[in-house]
């Protein structure tokens, strides 16, 4: 079943059409990477899912229920971490999670145990200071804790890692990995290495629409790169190949790459065999998300 379904979502701000018929389906228990460059409309999409923005057109369902703008009952399924989470700065983390539990209608005993559990998960269990002096990283962690408080079926995180240093990023990603058993995670980002690290599924947002979406592994095979890496034993051999094939690219003393669409691997290997060149390596280059992203965006 799809945890979240978006059908033909349109949204404009004034003259600017930000979403032009976006379709998205997030399968249950996936870690779903929602990728798009700055201003692509990631935050807009998420806010619409949360009923904070009214869509111009389109339908959204969360756990099979339709999302309504304003009074949004489907939010009971969702935990949300905004791009810049802000909490009541006069409270400390315990008090804040308590407050969150109370407005969600959890009972006292559960709030207490869940608060302790989550503060430990995000590493804030000894933090007794008020939120006022918190760093971005600490706020991000408290943000994850509050989002997970009422055991949401869907956790929506808006760029949870973009403001963090590498250590902080790794910690947040680890937390997302850990909660995967309990919930579906949808997170937006433009940091592709984060996506490669933890995502099972991705969607690429470009020009107001989802350009590609699916299992990360499927997409990688589908967009299999036509690039090969070739390594010779001597530099002279490399130069010989270079002279015969104008479109190869030298990337090291004995290394070059070429693309199938320019020179087929058979032509190159033919040349190698005919000239009795010894190879130390011939490799198909794994496509990176970067390439994929560029390819989709360039189209």
């Amino acid at each position, binding site marked *: 079943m799809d945890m979240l379904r978006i059908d033909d979502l349109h949204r404009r701000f004034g003259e600017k059409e930000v979403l032009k018929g976006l379709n998205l389906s997030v399968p249950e228990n996936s870690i779903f990477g929602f990728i798009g460059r700055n201003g692509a409309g990631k935050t807009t999409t998420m806010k619409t899912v949360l009923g*904070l923005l009214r869509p111009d057109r389109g339908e959204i369902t969360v756990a099979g229920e339709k999302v309504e703008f304003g009074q949004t009952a489907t*939010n009971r399924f969702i935990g*949300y971490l905004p791009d810049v989470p802000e*909490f009541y700065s006069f409270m400390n983390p315990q008090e804040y999670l308590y407050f969150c539990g109370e*407005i969600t209608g959890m009972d006292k005993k559960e709030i207490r145990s869940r608060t302790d559990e989550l503060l430990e998960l995000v590493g804030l269990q000894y933090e007794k200071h008020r939120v006022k002096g918190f760093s971005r990283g600490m706020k991000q962690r408290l943000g994850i804790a509050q989002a997970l408080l009422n055991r949401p079926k869907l956790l929506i995180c808006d760029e949870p890692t973009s403001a963090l240093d590498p250590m902080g990023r790794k910690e947040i990603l680890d937390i997302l990995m850990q909660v995967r058993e309990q919930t579906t995670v949808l997170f937006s980002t433009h940091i592709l290495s984060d996506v490669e690290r933890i995502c099972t599924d991705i969607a690429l947002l470009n020009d107001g629409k989802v350009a590609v979406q699916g299992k990360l592994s499927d997409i990688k095979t589908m967009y299999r790169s036509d690039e090969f890496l070739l390594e010779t034993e001597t530099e002279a051999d490399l130069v010989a190949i270079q002279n015969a094939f104008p479109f190869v690219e030298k990337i090291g003393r004995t290394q070059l790459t070429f693309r199938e669409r320019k020179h087929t691997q058979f032509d190159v290997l033919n040349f190698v065999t005919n000239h009795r060149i010894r190879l130390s390596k011939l490799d198909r280059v794994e496509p990176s998300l970067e390439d994929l992203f560029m390819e989709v965006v360039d189209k």
Partner: protein
Amino acid sequence: MKSLFAFMKKEILEQIRTGKIILLGLLFVLFGIMNPAIAKLTPWILESVADTMESSGMVITSVTITAMDSWTQFFKNIPIGLIAFVLIESSILTKEYSSGTLILSLTKGLERFKVVVTKATVLTVLWTICYWMCFGITYGYTAYFWDNSIAQNLIFSIVCWWVFGVMVVALMVVFSTLAKSNTGVLCGTGGVVFASYMLGMLPKCSKYMPSYLTDGNSLIYGLTDAEKYMPSLIIAAGLSVICLVISIPIFNKRHL
């Protein structure tokens, strides 16, 4: 219900921890003491400047101070108290938009009307406590030094001013649901009050304007009948209710 109380508890905690309650408390206690104190000190002040005045040709005859002077001070100072109250509390809702704190509460399932109800309740209760505390202090000192019974319609005039304050609070709430920042709230609230004063200058509509309620002096000196205050009292009360009622659907439609 539980979530309403939780949000209200948070609101009160905020008022306490950000020091707003203390500030307002001090301010209104100070005003409460100042009203009789200024009245009490008037002869003494006049005496001390009498010499200089005399040399410039003015002769000051001794003045008798009564409870009326204390209450005149009250009606002179309470507008400043209300303005301070509005300035201190004007960002009560708009700050939650700009910081984004409200988004987390709402996405946790807090119904929107509860936000409006909480903010309106807290503001009204705060205003009521501050105002009547200020009144109580002035009343106590005035009774101690002079005789309150010479002021006519005293309680009625005080109630009128309180209703005016409640209306201002209701305006603050409705403009908070419309505006983006507290500047909008201040302009809206100030604008309506200003318009009411301006229209009040036209003899034809003066007695229908809520600002009519702020003329407590005419009441305590017995210059105007209490009856005459009824239209403006009803209009102010009606306007308050309308403001509070429409702020709920306005807030429900708001994009955050």
